[in-house]
């Protein structure tokens, strides 16, 4: 998939990695989308998406396969140009920011690539290090600290192919920490992970929230979205609902998003949701 050419005016100026986050406006929301639409080869993939997230908020994006979850995250990351609408990260277009980390789906990464855990985490810093320079002792210190925070101390010199799925996911979280990202986008991070591992990743996300890092997580797990997120964004090409989980997960909303694939059963305390969409499907849109 072509990552979309950033707009010409979006090139990062040299000062961006000398003066940290020079482009952040005070008191502006972390993420603000106004009527965003995306087209692929003329066909609409996403339309009428508007939302605002404050620094430190955590939102889940849910919706069936092909709903445009990945596209929406690419738009926020500034790697896909919307065909209409505006995107602002801390008050400016995303293309100028180096504070956004996008963690791709595991299937997008070549895990046999000959790199070690430490090298992958260091990749998050190369913009801060700058052209023609090599990582300093301080950079390696930040990387090792980031690996420690995600519980991967002692794995530094492993090849990424030698890690479990959860550990692989954590390497990329460490990379985002090393990047000193303030907006982190995670594309299906929980796929194929067992409950304890999912929990440990959520714990890391809790720490990030404490540090006022804004996180957006695409997931198929509606229960997880309802229990562990401040905001939920229900997507099916358009934004069906956005808000607190209780407001979003209503029977009409879910029927709109999932159509025949969902069965909503009232069970006293709330709703029980059964859905047959699942996982790993590479979203075309």
């Amino acid at each position, binding site marked *: 998939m072509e990552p979309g050419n950033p707009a010409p005016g979006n*090139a990062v100026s040299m000062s961006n990695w000398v003066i940290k986050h020079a482009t952040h406006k005070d008191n502006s929301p972390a993420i603000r989308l106004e009527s965003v639409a995306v087209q692929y080869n003329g066909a609409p993939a996403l339309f009428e998406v508007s939302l605002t997230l404050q620094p430190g908020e955590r939102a889940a994006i849910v919706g069936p396969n092909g709903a445009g979850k990945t596209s929406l995250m690419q738009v926020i990351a500034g790697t896909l140009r919307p065909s209409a609408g505006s995107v602002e990260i801390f008050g400016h277009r995303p293309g100028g*920011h*180096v504070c956004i980390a*996008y963690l791709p789906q595991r299937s997008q990464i070549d895990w046999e*690539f000959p790199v070690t855990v430490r090298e992958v985490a260091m990749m998050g810093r190369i913009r801060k290090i700058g052209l*023609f320079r090599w990582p300093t002792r301080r950079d390696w210190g930040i990387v090792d600290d980031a690996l420690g925070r995600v519980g991967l101390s002692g794995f530094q010199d492993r090849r990424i192919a030698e890690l479990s799925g959860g550990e692989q996911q954590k390497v990329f979280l460490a990379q985002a920490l090393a990047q000193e990202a303030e907006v982190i986008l995670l594309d299906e991070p929980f796929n194929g992970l067992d409950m304890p591992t999912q929990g440990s990743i959520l714990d890391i996300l809790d720490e990030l929230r404490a540090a006022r890092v804004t996180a957006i997580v695409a997931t198929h797990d509606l229960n997880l979205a309802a229990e562990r997120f401040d905001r939920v964004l229900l997507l099916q090409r358009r934004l069906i609902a956005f808000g607190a989980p209780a407001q979003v997960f209503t029977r009409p909303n879910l029927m709109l998003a999932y159509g025949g694939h969902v069965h909503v059963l009232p069970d006293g305390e709330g709703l029980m949701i059964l859905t047959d969409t699942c996982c790993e499907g590479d979203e075309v849109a």
Partner: protein
Amino acid sequence: MTGLLAWLSEPFSYPFMVRGLWASLIVGIVVPLLGTYVVLRGMAFFGDAMAHIVLPGVVIAYLLGWPITLGALVAGVLAALIIGAISRRTRIREDTAIGVVFAGAFALGVAMLSLQRSYAVDLAHILFGNLLGVSNSDLRLMAVLSGIVLLTIGAFYKEFLVMSFDPTLAATLRLPVFILQNALLVLMALVIVVSLQTVGVALILAMLVTPGATAYLVTRRLPSMMAVASILGAASAICGLYLSFYWNFASGPAIVLVETAVFVVVFIMAPSRGWRRSSILEKRG
């Protein structure tokens, strides 16, 4: 002992063999080094196509009495940019489009050459190299181009690494992906020019991918993969030269055969990634 030494040094009492040795060492070291990116990014078809697209430039230079390397250089850089453009914007599949251009250009080169009386000999030299016909000025140009390739890889090591491993990360870090990608294609064009006289158009692909593929089987990190690929390339070049001198094999194919033999042996023996591992995995699965 003196007999062995004499046997080893005998070829190099001829100046054309000394020049051939230098040429094959340059090619053996530099081409596989860049080839590691070709292996890791799955660009083998690109490399082969580019080598063939260079042919008309070589033939035109030859017919006009210009240095062949100059014609190849112009055609190679043009080919790199054409391939880059095709891979960005076509309605038909990228490999199909490249295939059309690749075969068309190659046919054009052969057709022009076929008008010459010395067609058969010329064609053999262009297709399979003419290592023993390398002149001092050829050597100088090869050395300069190789120096450019090595310096560029060294200067942009981290950026090329990120772009090869995770293009999305390169985009979110706002690296100049477009420039880096084209730079890599131009570097490929340069090493193709450098290897033209050593192994010829038809076998350049082997210099690009075979030592890199062997190194991939036995190394854990990119720097060591690069080092092993270069050492194998240089050693194969020297062995090929002896095969050529004492047993009259054509030098280009001899070098490629040594590389291939090393690959086959390592593929069978390699503990971590080769055939034994895949057969172990099959038994488990």
